[in-house]
């Protein structure tokens, strides 16, 4: 195989070949190599751990059409970088799950690149959508971007339903999100037995020692600054309040959903993506401290809602693992 001879070697850069530069020590992670993107041949790119955008692929010249795509106009490929899945979910991270669900509902062809413990790509401020020159980072902005690219899951909604969507999303972010963050990142039993090991296994050492702690601190900050009372921000006072709010919010969602399949009729929309993104991790991930999970399980229509979406839209990844 041609690429074997390149690894570890240094060659004169020639068009279409790979120039490999070894930087730093390569003690862990199977060797760390830094590559000049412009010199990587399209055929070999995946072996070296990144994908070329469509423009780069075409610019490579020699290997045009290798992948069976001839010329002709094509939509800019959309690549999403997000945290991986577990416990039957495509992603364990709420915001990533929202974007994944919306992409499935609207039919956007996303290439999902899951964060793993190699050093490629960034892992801050995830989920991130890259498309040619655009880099978009928060779920609301990513969804807006997808809508502008004509991947719209809400085209059947009336204006009033669109307004309701906005209101319910605000409700979710105010009432449910603090409790989700608390369950994942702040509750000590959950954090040390489930969350931290899971995330640390997907972050390369030594970042795995730092990053989970930083994410936990950010979650704590967010809860205290929005729910706590100045000047002494104490967690104990707000814990009871946020769980109460979360249970109330779940009840309200359950009332709103009733017996219909999705929140607005028979096709899923943005609101369904958000509710799924926030509720499914609570429902599926196995935590030691489970009081909110038990509450979710008692609301059978929300459980049915999550299971339906998982089996209809994420069937392929479920079959894999």
């Amino acid at each position, binding site marked *: 195989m041609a690429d074997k001879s390149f690894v570890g070697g240094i060659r004169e850069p020639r068009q279409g070949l790979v120039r490999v530069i070894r930087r730093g020590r390569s003690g862990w992670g199977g060797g760390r190599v830094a590559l000049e993107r412009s010199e990587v041949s399209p055929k070999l790119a995946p072996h070296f751990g990144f994908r070329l955008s469509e423009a780069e692929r075409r610019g490579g010249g020699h290997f045009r059409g290798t992948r069976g795509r001839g010329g002709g106009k094509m939509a800019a490929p959309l690549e999403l970088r997000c945290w991986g899945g577990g416990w039957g979910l495509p992603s364990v991270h709420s915001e990533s799950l929202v974007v994944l669900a919306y992409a499935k509902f609207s039919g956007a062809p996303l290439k999902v690149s899951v964060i793993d413990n190699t050093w490629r790509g960034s892992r801050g401020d995830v989920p991130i959508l890259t498309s040619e020159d655009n880099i978009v980072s928060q779920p609301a902005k990513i969804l807006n971007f997808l809508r502008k690219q004509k991947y719209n899951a809400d085209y059947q909604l009336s204006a009033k339903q669109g307004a309701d969507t906005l209101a319910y999303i605000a409700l979710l972010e105010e009432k449910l999100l603090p409790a989700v963050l608390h369950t994942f990142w702040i509750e000590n039993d959950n954090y040390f037995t489930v969350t931290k090991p899971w995330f640390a296994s997907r972050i390369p050492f030594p970042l795995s020692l730092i990053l989970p702690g930083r994410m936990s601190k950010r979650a704590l900050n967010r809860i205290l600054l929005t729910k706590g009372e100045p000047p002494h921000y104490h967690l104990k006072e707000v814990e*009871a309040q946020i769980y109460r709010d979360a249970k109330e919010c779940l009840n309200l969602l359950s009332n709103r959903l009733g017996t219909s399949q999705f929140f607005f009729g028979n096709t899923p929309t943005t609101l369904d993506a958000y509710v799924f993104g926030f509720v499914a991790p609570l429902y599926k991930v196995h935590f030691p401290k489970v009081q909110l999970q038990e509450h979710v399980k008692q609301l059978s229509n929300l459980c049915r809602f999550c299971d339906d979406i998982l089996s209809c839209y994420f069937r392929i990844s479920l079959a894999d693992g």
Partner: protein
Amino acid sequence: MDPGRVSHPMSSPSPCSKAETDEEIAFRRATEPWPEDATLYQQLKGEQILLSDNASSLAVQAFLQMCELPIKVVCRANAEYMSPSGKVPFIHVGNQVVSELGPIVQFVKAKGHSLSDGLDEVQKAEMKAYMELVNNMLLTAELYLQWCDEATVGEITHSRYGFPYPWPLNHILAYQKQWEVKRKMKAIGWGNKTLDQVLEDVDQCCQALSQRLGTQPYFFNKQPTELDALVFGHLFTILTTQLTSDELSDKEPGEKRKTTYFVLGSEWLHL
């Protein structure tokens, strides 16, 4: 304190709660009547109060007027520090002190007065959702404009916030508050937003409210609810406050329905 053990009426998963009977409501009103000397505290109206605080205060006043409960408004320079949660306005009723619209609504309900009893469960959920939308978007945008937009901060906010205090305390307190607000903005993800993006969000929020209001006089049925009070408080303040940039109030005039609504609301406060 184990959060799971707190029992609260809303923590049970059954979706329907029985509507209160008239006897129960009358009983509550009789045992703890609303006193005549209830007072609402806010900052000094002319020189100190800021946009967001004014909006919140007006919302509470409108709500109490809608419930036909008498309230006296008292302006104190240290209202923010007197408040149990650090936020204005707060009301002093009998020997209890309650701050912010949410807890005040619940407190008033415990006394037997409520505006949203006639709503069914789905409508109540919608009402709560829209109140969160207003808090999330409008209130945060007001805070952003006051404290994170350099032009407004320099010209208006700093001098107003530090008005009652001597130098150098006025500067120190203003900078401290600005730092606190900026920290909060960063935590919720608004730290990197530009003014244009914030105004776009406000626009979206107003569109949503306008769609929901439609051609009705109030948001739900023919009776005003706490949502109407909240929206009125914010709209009125935004439309009538003079800031360095008029962009915020420019977002509003196109919405004819909301202007009519806001006229109706002014009647409530006899403005």
